[in-house]
């Protein structure tokens, strides 16, 4: 006799016959009960009389006698469905009720012989798929926030929960009427439920499911209950979008700011002319010519700013900027007006005394600026006075502010929608963080 390693002698015994559900007779009514999670299930409710049977051993002891018809459920016992790529069989369901609010919800027990058990919870049309956590979770009572799996969970609700109905089979000793203390913590789309009762602490971690995914998995079609309000762990659609736009928005703003800084640094910021123009009403021509404006060779913006000293008057300056060599040029008008008065004791004013025109990419050369004024109504015995300033290659701010406003508006909009969504979520909780509280 010699010792050999196993790999040299893989003498495998013949495989066990295929595993399958087990059928037995209900000790109360004699009806047939089908056990799907054989070896796991220790409680099964008879589908004929509703009695609860202890299936942990061969004795099949009656635990709770009942005589009621099986209540229909949205997901049918025995049904199969694929969620997140794994196939599950519905083997049990419970109705639970919060003792304070009397709000009820349904919990379905799902089974897969390879992956064990999951809980599929439906409350007000919101679905969450949960798995029991086999991990130390530091959960002192009275805690409002704690970290788990790298996320910060916030207390959403706590209370006493009663099991008001059970059907199917369970791997623990479920009883109708049993009570447990439940605390729900949320970090949407995740949910952490801590349940205390019968000397046990059970922690389950869940993820919000799109109701459509549940409908598809179990062939519910249009029988899906409508979503009511915002679910405790329903992810905010705005947060998702906001996350997506954050990076592009930051890049966009950074680009706009650096372009503007570059423009400010590189701008020649050269003043071509700056003076006041005085015109008398008796001036027949009301025209002035400013010759010999020299513009450097590179293309650059030229900005012409005018300001009128006006009192319930209007003024319009027609400009021509003409290249002395080529005779080609630009024609534009600057219009100004200023009106004010008292109306029913209220002071009012409108109009703009200052205006400007920006000429883009003006080529270099010698130019003349011709300005022709028109104004009214005439103010007798008083001169028309207006200021003229022409500058070349100036860093412009108006476009920058527009760009900035545009770049910020989308994140701002999403932020406001997100806040609204979170307020709706936390309106159902007694533990809303202050920023989501309406008051």
């Amino acid at each position, binding site marked *: *006799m*010699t*010792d*050999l*390693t*196993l*790999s040299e*002698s*893989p*003498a*495998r*015994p013949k*495989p*066990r016959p*295929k*595993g*399958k*559900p*087990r059928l037995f007779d209900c000790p109360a009514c004699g009806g047939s009960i089908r056990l*799907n*999670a*054989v*070896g*796991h299930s*220790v409680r099964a409710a008879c589908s004929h009389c509703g009695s609860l049977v202890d299936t*942990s*051993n*061969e004795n099949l002891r009656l635990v709770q006698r009942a005589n009621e018809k099986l209540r229909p459920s949205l997901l049918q016992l025995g049904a*199969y469905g694929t969620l997140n790529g794994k*196939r599950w069989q519905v083997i049990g369901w419970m109705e639970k009720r919060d003792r304070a609010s009397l709000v009820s919800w349904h919990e379905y027990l799902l*089974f*897969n*012989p*390879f*992956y*064990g*058990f999951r809980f599929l919870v439906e409350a007000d049309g919101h679905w969450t798929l949960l798995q*029991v956590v*086999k*991990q*130390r979770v530091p959960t002192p009572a009275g805690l409002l926030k704690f970290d788990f799996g790298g996320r910060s969970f916030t207390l959403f609700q706590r209370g006493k929960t009663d099991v008001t109905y059970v059907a199917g089979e369970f*791997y*623990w*000793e479920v009883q109708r009427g049993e009570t447990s203390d439940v605390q729900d913590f949320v970090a949407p789309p995740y949910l952490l439920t801590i349940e205390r009762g019968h*000397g*046990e*602490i059970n922690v389950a971690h869940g993820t919000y499911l799109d109701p459509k995914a549940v409908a598809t998995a179990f062939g519910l079609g249009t029988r899906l209950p409508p979503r009511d309000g915002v679910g405790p762990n329903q992810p905010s659609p705005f947060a998702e979008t906001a996350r997506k736009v954050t990076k592009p928005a930051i890049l966009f703003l950074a680009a706009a700011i650096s372009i503007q800084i570059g423009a400010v640094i590189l701008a020649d910021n050269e003043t071509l002319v700056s003076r006041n123009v005085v015109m008398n009403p008796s001036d027949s021509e009301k025209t002035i010519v400013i010759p010999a404006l020299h513009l450097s060779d590179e293309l650059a913006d030229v900005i012409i700013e005018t300001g009128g000293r006006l009192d319930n008057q209007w003024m319009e300056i027609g400009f021509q900027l003409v290249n002395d060599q080529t005779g080609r040029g630009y024609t534009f008008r600057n219009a100004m007006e200023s009106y004010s008065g008292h109306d029913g004791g209220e002071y009012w004013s409108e109009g703009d005394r200052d205006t400007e025109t920006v000429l883009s990419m003006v080529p270099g050369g010698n130019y003349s600026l011709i300005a022709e004024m028109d104004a009214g109504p005439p103010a007798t015995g008083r001169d028309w006075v207006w200021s003229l300033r022409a500058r070349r290659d100036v860093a412009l701010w108006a476009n920058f502010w527009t760009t900035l406003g545009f770049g910020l508006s989308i994140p701002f909009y999403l932020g406001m929608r997100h806040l609204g969504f979170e307020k709706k979520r936390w309106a159902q909780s007694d533990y809303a963080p202050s920023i989501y509280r309406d008051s």
Partner: protein
Amino acid sequence: MRLFPCPACGATITFHSPVSIHAVCEFCRSTVVRRDVNVEAIGTMAGLPDDMSPFQIGSQGVFGTIPFTIIGQAKMAWKHGTWNEWFLWCDDGRRGWLAEAQGFLALSFELDEPWPADVAHSITRLKQTIESNKLLAKTQAALSALPVGTVYRFSGVVFELVDAKFSHCIGSAGELPIAATHGRTTITLDFIGLGRSFAGIEFTYDGPRVFLGEYVDWDHLNIKHGREFEGWT
């Protein structure tokens, strides 16, 4: 590997692992115990109750990078249910256990004596509670003397007691390193640590045994020759 003729029916009984001392004859279900160069029949093992476990004797898998083969099964029961303990023959020569309960899988290795100081200290604490309360002679309710949530330290890791129960073996198959006789009183303690770490301690009148390991996923075990099911693939 050692081969012995079954003392009852003469069929060959294989002991793959040198640490195995207990086996069930595949043909006549006689239970045999190895004594040096001989085996001795000590009774007949009742048929194992069926279950929906995806494992069976002969299934092969990997734990991390270490391949293993399942060579034995002990079906354990307590007041409120049953679970499986699969005995693993690992390619690195270690004896491993794959506990399968309520759909969770915990893979662990027995920690041989001499234990590290913190393990020895924790065991002394537990032993004192068990012996001073004579818990092994009592029933499930008395185990409240070992409250869940109590913290212990094993091999430098903090563990929390999550479950204390009386258990006994109700059936076995293949070969096992312990005599899986019916009705042997055992207090089984389960602990969880941070991450996925797992610890189990068994107390019998023979003394404590310590197992350290972790919770594992079906997908990571990469099981071949697993059990098949009707309606599942």
